């Protein structure tokens, strides 16, 4: 059976509201789920009208198209069964049984029958071009640091790990850095650049793609200024924060594994290939 992943036809605010409903339904059962992706950045900008407007009007998926395609959630592996119960029995979401049967160890896919958007659920680890770990429950509980979304640093990492980054992800990063200052520690409304630098200091391939993506971001940002889609002040804010992040990454001492891999460089593949589902 196929579920065509076309842009969601409900307003972004309604999508966000229904997504938060799912997170809260899980919380009521002591199950941790957090929103990721572009929608998470939109959610975290809920009190910044300038950022919300930009994320919707910069043409994430093309001019005139709805901005979001789906809801991405992440939870803990130890709560795998409870998450399925919450989503299937509590929220009446319809599972993609083929995907869940075969890839269920790393991904569950559902469909919202009323509002008709697909939902991807990940567990503790994002395995795309690079790997991002969120720790096991209840120990290194990174998912508990913010709600109903990931932390801002994790949202940034989620975008920075993409090898073939595209416009929508760069737009999300621009919005993220426009709406949130950077910080050297974990704070609810700032991007913890020290944490990002720490993650990248142990993974040369991830570091390489992240630095390249920050360069792409600057290129796109400058282009938006030329096109009048961003004001010079907005861009100054974003690029200043991006520079602060790059500085933190540069300053972070690198691990022996990082240095060893750096010697090999791009002569061997440094990222994993991601294919359509």
């Amino acid at each position: 059976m196929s579920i065509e992943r076309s842009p969601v036809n409900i307003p972004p605010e309604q999508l966000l509201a229904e997504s938060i409903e799912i997170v809260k339904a899980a919380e009521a059962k002591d199950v941790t789920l957090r929103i990721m992706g572009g929608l998470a950045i939109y959610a975290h900008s809920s009190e910044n009208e300038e950022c919300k407007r930009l994320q919707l009007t910069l043409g994430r998926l093309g001019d005139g198209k709805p901005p979001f395609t789906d809801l991405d959630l992440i939870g803990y592996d130890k709560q795998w069964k409870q998450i399925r119960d919450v989503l299937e029995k509590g929220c009446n979401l319809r599972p993609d049984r083929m995907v869940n049967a075969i890839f269920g160890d790393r991904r569950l896919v559902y469909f919202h029958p009323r509002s008709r958007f697909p939902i991807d659920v990940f567990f503790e680890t994002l395995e795309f071009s690079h790997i991002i770990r969120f720790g096991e429950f209840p120990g290194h509980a990174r998912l508990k640091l913010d709600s109903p979304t990931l932390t801002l640093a994790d949202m940034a990492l989620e975008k920075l790990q993409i090898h073939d980054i595209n416009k929508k992800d760069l737009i999300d990063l621009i919005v993220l850095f426009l709406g949130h200052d950077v910080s050297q520690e974990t704070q609810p409304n700032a991007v913890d650049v020290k944490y990002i630098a720490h993650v990248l200091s142990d993974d040369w391939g991830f570091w390489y793609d992240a630095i390249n993506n920050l360069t792409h971001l600057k290129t796109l940002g400058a282009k938006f200024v030329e096109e009048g889609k961003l004001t010079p002040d907005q861009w100054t804010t974003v690029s200043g924060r991006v520079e602060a992040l790059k500085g933190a990454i540069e300053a972070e001492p690198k691990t022996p594994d990082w240095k060893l891999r750096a010697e090999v460089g791009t002569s061997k593949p440094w990222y994993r290939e991601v294919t359509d589902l």
Partner: protein
Amino acid sequence: MSEPHGTFARKTSGVVRDVSLRDAFIFGITLAIPFAANFFLFPLYSFLLPGADWTIATVIGLCLSLANYALYASFGAMMPRSGGDYVFQSRGVHPLLSFLSVISWDVFLQAPLFVTILVASSVQLGISPFLTMAGAASGNQALINAGNWAAGSTGEFTLAALFLILALAANIGGLKWVARSQKYILFPLMIISGIVIAALLFSTTPSGFETSFNHYAQILNGTSGSYATLISATGAVAPAFDWLHTIYLGIIIGTSFTFWTVWTAPFFGEIKGANNFRGLFIAFVAGGAFQAFFLMIPELAGFQYGLGSQFVNGAAFQGVVGIPSLAFHPGFGILTLMTTDNIAVMFLASVGYMVAGYFMLQLFLTNMSRYLLAGSIDGVLPLALSSPSRRFKTPVNALVLSALVCAIYFALVYFQPDQFSFWESVAVWTGPVLFFGTSIAGIVFPWTNKSIYNSSPISKYKGLLTISGLIVLACNLFVIIGFIAIPELLFPLGTNATLIIIAFALVGWAWYFAFAHYQKGKGIDVGLTYKEIPPE
């Protein structure tokens, strides 16, 4: 509520798959029965088709296989989800056809029966001969006794059960473990055995082999001059080349072996790149070419060269008719091992097809479980078969059921050796069913499922799907008709075997309608699933 009809593939946040087209190439070789000559071609087809040239026949088979490769690569590009033939036939023709052909006949009859025979062959033609010959070469009676035990009912069942447990464990662990074991264990061993077998056969001559054969026959059979006795049973003749027999053999090699590199179709959804026609087609061709040019032609040509046509003809006669009487079965495996007295070399020659039975069983379990999974998702089989396991998160229930079915057939076949030919005839007759159904699906798909066909990249290759389906159908029809009408290929089915096949069809038909009725009572219209609309 309905979803828009569209492509079968989903464009979404991606997934990293554990298995690639390179793995599919290796799987294809496994599923095409590596060292097919050891298992099936000799002595049967030497006996039935004297004068057939094995090299030319293999090339004919490979050429015919290109149509099957195009057929399955097309389906993979259009519907790269797991379930393979079940999905192709249900979406192309009718769900009842897919249920009968794939679930009823293949999962519960042909596949477990066939793998039972394959594992038995791996034991009888690989493990047992090696132990026997190692014992004969070293004067170790215990090894000879072990070889005899392995070939007996208890030995076969014990070894098969052990293989089954290991294969089930690998599958439950996930396809990546299946892929790794095939890549790092089976594939190197196949290459080693392929090289050693060819080297052994091409480094001997008929006169040299005569000496070896007489020596080992003295040990194993207690008779002298067995070489001359054996070839005189057929008048010491070497059959003249026969084009017709070569063509017949080519079609059989194609439909029975080189066609089967496509049988990763049941788990296309788990293979990276399986939505790409060109990549899949290349993987299939590479598997077929490897099978043909590395695991068949050198071995078969070496067999003729080293042993001599007269002896091959005589050994084929003995293998099928049993004259003259021998205490050992002069199969491809044991005759190859007679060209040396070095036990280490014997092991290297045998190890490839000793392990092939296990690795084929591994993939048969994978395929059977994915067919069950697809049926469960479509609502024609119980939901439990597609529920991911909490612990392993693979379709464990479907895998366990598949293993249980295999275990039942192991017991039925191994503990009733006098019924072996009966079960073999059932397996052979139901063998063409899978490709038969999928070829029909290929022929009609551009008309019966326009939405998927027209929105896929395959539609730009006008006529490819239909023509390749027609060629594959013709080959399978030839085989079925050949079993009935061609004197050299007569393979009588027998009343009991016919009844078994009909019974499985009737049970499948009854289940399909009864379960659909049961699902309707729960508010699930099974008919809607085949129209690509998620059931409400």
